[in-house]
């Protein structure tokens, strides 16, 4: 895997053991340091950068952004007609 230094990828937390968690990246599980995210729960999504979870990913916010795109596409389609 290419090491892109500011690249960070989302994964799902499967198991937490102190400062470390097992995170699932679409079928590949990796051990990740979660010291930067105290209070993390199993089932939450995290953004992982060089082996460290740096923030949670909020699926509800993702949905809101997509709903906005959907609305834009609808309005543009109406204008095109």
């Amino acid at each position, binding site marked *: 895997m290419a090491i892109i230094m*500011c690249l960070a990828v989302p994964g799902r937390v499967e198991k937490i053991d102190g400062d470390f968690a097992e995170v699932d990246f679409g079928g590949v599980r990796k051990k990740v340091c979660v010291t930067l995210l105290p209070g993390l729960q199993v089932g939450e999504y995290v*953004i992982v950068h060089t082996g460290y979870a740096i923030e949670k990913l909020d699926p509800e916010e993702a949905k809101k952004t997509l709903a906005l795109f959907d609305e834009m596409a609808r309005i543009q389609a109406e204008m095109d007609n």
Partner: protein
Amino acid sequence: MIDTRPFRDSKYAKAIAQEIEQLSEGKNIRIVHVCGTHEDTITRHGLRSILPNNIKLVAGPGCPVCVCAAEDVDMAIELARMGHIITSFGDMIQVPSTSSSLVKERMRGADVRVVYGVNEAVEIAKANPEKDVIFIGAGFETTAPTMAVEILRGPPDNFSILTSLKVIPPAMEILVSLEGFNVDGFITPGHVSTIIGTNAFRPFAEKHRVPCVAAGFEPLDVLEAIRMILNQINDGRATSENEYTRVVKPEGNLVAQKMLRHAFYIDDAPWRGLGVIKKSGYYIRDEFARHDARERYDFSPIESIDILPGCRCHEVILGMIEPKECKLFGKRCTPEDPYGPCMVGHEGTCRIHHESGAL
């Protein structure tokens, strides 16, 4: 697994692009981003070709490997020659400096190892108690907290870090102060913002009256950030906004910020191609001096050369020229045998343009 495909949906891309066209009608707009991963998204998905011609998307200094000063790389090379175990990110070991690179030193017998993160370097130190292990820690605010975690956790005594950690907002200050550098809006880096928050860019946006929008790394994230910048311009506003709401908080990751403050202090730092920028680097605090390679080892003074003759990286880093305007691009300078630092990293503008075939 989170489904990121809708963030690449061409139906949405078309709708946002149409809005962008309407919002920017009759204006020439120059938008700068400062993140190698954004450049990767932009080039990979051909975003420049779907934007109207009056919008120019420019890559600024967003690649930690490219802006790592030659003097830092020269120090790393000296440490490798001392016979210590050197660990770093894959891109970093290829960076050419004044006379060598870590990869070249490895070919000459130095012990240089690629790690995926600083925690792996600590493991190597634990496994080799009789050797000194040094991590060459280049990065921005995104990566700095990972090193703070290890310093504060208390690594073994034979472990130290040669930091080359940069703070992004001061570099943006330098950019806007450059003569001839026009910018109508900044796409601020999503994962730097994850740590420092979108609030951190607000004073900058207001002071210089430049809209800033933090964006994620899917193609629609970047398009939407452009649309949000145009909205600010049309409304006569200039503030720091957030497109990447699924990850970035206005205040950032407060735990990470606290750890950064505990482990590091901020001082002036050299950037390749930009010179020394005030208060733009993280340095390890005195109380952890034994884990600070700068304090732990004696370095011989050498004259480091940031930009080798013929290389125009400094202009590429500043978004002044396109990589293909450099005569060496694709000839003397290729990803297989990089001459300048912008051809090395996966986030280097020259490298990205070379790989996407933008000849």
